[in-house]
C-alpha cells in the first residue's frame, strides 16, 4: 500500500544519494582529467554534448570552420574516467566505435599517446587539436577547455 511518509523518507534518501554521487563525480572530474586544446582554438568552453560529438567523430569543425584534430590518452585511469564521465562509454565500447568508424571509411583513427606529457606536446604543436590529460598536468603550452 502507498504510504506518503515512507515515500518522503525514501525520496529524501534517494536525493541524498544522488547528491553524493553527483558530488563524487564532480570531484573526480575536477581531479581526474582536464580537457586541453591548441592555442589556435577559439573556443574556451564546450558542452558535454559537443565534447561527445567531437570524440565520436560527429562534430568535426570548430566555430571558425577549422577541422578538429582529436587525440586520445591511453593512460588507463584517466582514459576510463574521461570516457565514462564525458561519453558514457567504457574503453571497450569506445574502441569498438572507432573500429566501426575506420572499417567503414568514415574517419581516421585518432592518434593515441601513452602519457600526459606526450599528449600535451602533440596538442601544443598541432593546430586545432583537442585532447585530455590527467588533472594538474597542463602547463602553458596549451589552453584549457571548460566543460559546461
Amino acid at each position, binding site marked *: 500500500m502507498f504510504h506518503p511518509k515512507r515515500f518522503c523518507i525514501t525520496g529524501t534518501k534517494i536525493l541524498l544519494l544522488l547528491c553524493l554521487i553527483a558530488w563524487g563525480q564532480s570531484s573526480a572530474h575536477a581531479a581526474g582529467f582536464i580537457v586541453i586544446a591548441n592555442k589556435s582554438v577559439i573556443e574556451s568552453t564546450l558542452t558535454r554534448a559537443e565534447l561527445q560529438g567531437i570524440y565520436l567523430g560527429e562534430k568535426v569543425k570548430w566555430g571558425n570552420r577549422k577541422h578538429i584534430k582529436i587525440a586520445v590518452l591511453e593512460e588507463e585511469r584517466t582514459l576510463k574516467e574521461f570516457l565514462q564521465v564525458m561519453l558514457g562509454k567504457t574503453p*571497450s565500447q569506445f574502441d569498438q566505435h572507432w573500429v566501426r568508424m575506420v572499417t567503414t571509411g*568514415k574517419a581516421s583513427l585518432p592518434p593515441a599517446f601513452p602519457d600526459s606529457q606526450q599528449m600535451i606536446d602533440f596538442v601544443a604543436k598541432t593546430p586545432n587539436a583537442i585532447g585530455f590529460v590527467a588533472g594538474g598536468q597542463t602547463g602553458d603550452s596549451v589552453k584549457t577547455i571548460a566543460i559546461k
Partner: protein
Amino acid sequence: MKKALTAMMLLAFTGSAHAVDLAGVEIHGFASQGYIKTSPDNNFPVSNSGEGSFNFNDFAVNFSKEVNPDLRVGLQLLAMDRGSYGKDKITLDWAFGDYRVTDWLGFRAGKIKIPLGLYNESRDNDAARTFIFLPQNEYYDYERDSVNAITGASIYGSIPAGSAGTVNYQFQVGTTPIPLDGASARNYSAYISTVDAPLTTTDVNSSTAFVHHLEWRTPVGVRATFSGLHTSFDGTATGIYTDPVTSATTPVTAQWKFDSWHRYILGVEYLWNDLTLATEYQRDDYTVSADYQNPALENFTSRQASDGWYVSAAYRFTDWFELGGYYTEIYADRHHRNGSTFEDLGVGAPWQTWQKEKVLTLRFDPVRNLVLKVEGHLIDGTWNMSEYTDASKRNWYLVATKATVFF
C-alpha cells in the same frame, strides 16, 4: 590479386599494432577465420556446415587518405568464404570520396556502406561486435552482398539537439550491386525454382535504390535508429525442367522480378557501464513474380510481407571477457505467423515459414587487436535456410568459433 592482399596485410601487421601510415595513406584491416558446425542436415549459412567447416572467414584491408582537412578518399578490399559463395574472391567492399562541408552537411560519392539498422555498416568486421552472427532477420548473411553498399551518392550530417543529444542523418541514392555469383542471386533463384525445375540466375538488373537513415544519440546512453531501403530488381534465370511422370527434360528460361521492395528497420541500443542492450524490428514488403517460358510451369505473382525482431544483451565482465546473448524471431508472412500460408510460400510445412533462435556468445580479448569467440544457437524453423533440403530438420543447432586479428 590474393597474394597482393596478403602482402599488404602482412605489411600492415608488421608496421604497428594500431594502423599503418604510408605517405599519408592510413591502412587498416582485419583477418577473421572461423569454424562452424550445424545439425547434419541443416547447412547454414555455410553450405557444408552440417559436416563441420572451415569455409568460414572474412579478410579485409582498407586504405584512406585525407586529401585536405575537408576531403577524404578511401577504399576497402574484402574477401570472404561461406562454402558455396564468397569463396575468398576479392571484392571492392566500399570506395568513396567524402567532402564534409560542415558538421551538419557532408557529401559522399562512390560505393558507400548502407546504414541499415544499428549495425549494417560495420557488419563485416567481427571485432566490432559481441556476436559472431548478428540476428539473421536484420543482418541476413545471404543478403550481405546486396545490402552491403550502394553505388551512388549520399548526403549526411550531424545536427545538435541541445539537451536531447544529437541527430545524425544519411540519405543515399544509387544502385545496389548484386553479383551473379553471390549469395543474393542464389537466394533469388531459390525463390523462383520449383522441385522439378531448379534454376540459376544468369542476369540481374537493379533499379534505382533509395536509403534513409536517422540516428538519435541521447546523452544518457540510448541510441535509436530508423532506416529504410526502397528498391526493385529483376533478372533472368535458366535451368532444366524434368517432367515428374515421363522424366522428359526441357529447357526453362524465366524472367523474374522483385518489385517495390520496401524495408524498414527500427532499432534501439542502450549502454549502461559494461552492459549493452539492443533491440530491432524489421519488416519487408515486396512483390515477387516469375514468367516461365515453358508451358509446364505456371507463372506467378505474389505479394510478400515478412518481419522479425530481436532482443540482445551483452555484459563485459573484465577487459578480456564479455558474455552476450539474444533471442530472435523471423516470419515469412507476418499476417500468418502460425505458418498457415506455407503452401502459398512454396514450402512444405508451417515451421518452414519461421525461424526462432536462442543465442549465447562468449567473447575473449586476450591481447589487444585479437578477438576470440565461441557461439551457440538453438533454432526452431528453417525460413532463412536458403540451402534447404527435404532432410532438413525443424529443430537444429549451430555452433561457431572465430578468431579475428584487426589493426
